[in-house]
């Protein structure tokens, strides 16, 4: 059956469904307003750190993996994942954890060696998923969930915020995982302002890990065999906008 014929067959099959005759729209005045209020409430909470910093932050210290993948092919410099690989990885990830990723949109992807990392989000919540030839789809999660609620970065007292609002980097959350290999991978999501063109994460004696930028965030992952030391943001001309020692980041455990 050709694609066109199959498409027609699908439309015909679903033509049996119609909205119920008594269906009417809800009174949206309050509901639409409620949505706006919610957004308005989030914006200053998110904007404060973003405006204050060159790189705001959300961190998913992640972990996992069943076996002992060596990540030998891992690269500090990400490459672009081809659309087919992204589509396959996306299906695998959402199928693996539909509760947490199904409602989020794919906002970024990158390839490091044989591994594809996807970033899902909706502006208020983020989730990461790592796929590769020797691992099951790995959803990197926030505390007890599969998605990080970006609202938790609120300076008013969310997860892992620094005490002062002029801080350069702020953790949104430190993800937890029950996976036995929870310490083999670290993945970070960092909020960035529009003037940030490049973000690197410096680690002990290793080539700096270049993060992937997209949709107001930067994200990266690496085998957790070395500690991250600093996060550095650069502008389009390569000038350093901000360098933040990781040791100055304070996590509030929840």
């Amino acid at each position, binding site marked *: 059956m050709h694609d066109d014929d199959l498409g027609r067959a*699908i439309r015909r099959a679903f033509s049996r469904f119609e909205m119920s005759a008594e269906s009417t729209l809800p009174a949206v005045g309050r509901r639409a307003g409620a949505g706006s209020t919610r957004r308005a409430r989030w914006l200053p909470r998110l904007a404060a750190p973003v405006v204050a910093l060159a790189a705001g932050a959300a961190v998913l210290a992640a972990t996992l993996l069943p076996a002992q993948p060596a990540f030998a092919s891992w690269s500090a410099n990400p490459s672009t994942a081809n659309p087919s690989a992204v589509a396959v990885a996306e299906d695998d990830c959402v199928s693996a954890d539909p509760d947490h990723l199904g409602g989020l*949109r794919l906002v970024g992807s990158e390839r490091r060696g044989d591994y594809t990392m996807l970033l899902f989000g909706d502006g208020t919540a983020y989730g990461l998923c790592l796929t590769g030839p020797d691992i099951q789809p790995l959803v990197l999660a926030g505390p007890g969930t599969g998605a990080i609620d970006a609202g938790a970065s609120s300076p008013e007292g969310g997860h892992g915020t620094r005490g002062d609002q002029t801080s350069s980097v702020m953790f949104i959350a430190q993800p937890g995982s029950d996976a036995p290999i929870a310490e083999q991978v670290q993945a970070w999501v960092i909020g960035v302002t529009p003037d940030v063109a490049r973000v690197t994460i410096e680690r002990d004696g290793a080539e700096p890990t270049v993060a992937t930028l997209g949709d107001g965030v930067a994200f990266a992952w690496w085998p957790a065999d070395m500690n991250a030391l600093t996060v550095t943001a650069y502008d389009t001309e390569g000038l350093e906008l901000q360098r933040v020692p990781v040791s100055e980041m304070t996590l509030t455990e929840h």
Partner: protein
Amino acid sequence: MQLTETHPAQLIADQLEGFDQTPARAGSFADLYGRSRNDVYRAVLVAVRDPHRAEDAVQEGFARAYADWDRVKVHPNPVGWVARVALNHATSVWRRLRRESTELPPAAVAPEGERSIDPLLIRAVWSLPIRQRQVVAMRILLDQSIEQTAHALGMAPGTVRAHLHRALSTLRTRLEGADHHREDIHHA
């Protein structure tokens, strides 16, 4: 367009407190609603698989379109706009509830004696991964272009093509498998 008391858009408009309900405004909206609500509903149903949830999401989509009509009426793709809002609403509610039934709704089950492939096809579509269902909903049910689908779903056009290709391949395989099964039964 002249509205009558029984026009569905008027029923909708009557519920929209606090909004401008001039005939011209409601008329344009009424046209969009009357022309596309079932199309949007079917598309959302493909993605969410629950008639009640789909209906609620479509209502939300049109309600927001009405509330934001000044912007939507000049949007190059108002149907896509409503569908995107409805799909987002459906998935955000679903994510909040953190559950999704793995059982297909009764409507997907073939009535006794029905020979059409429709029930089989509905079941096959609903068995696709959610991203593939979303692409099928936008691309096939609403006839949105690759670019429009990509924009609505926040995907790259290449990703839309990949999802669509996989979805159609899966559906084709399942239909062919069912054909062979029918032939086996027929020849037995």
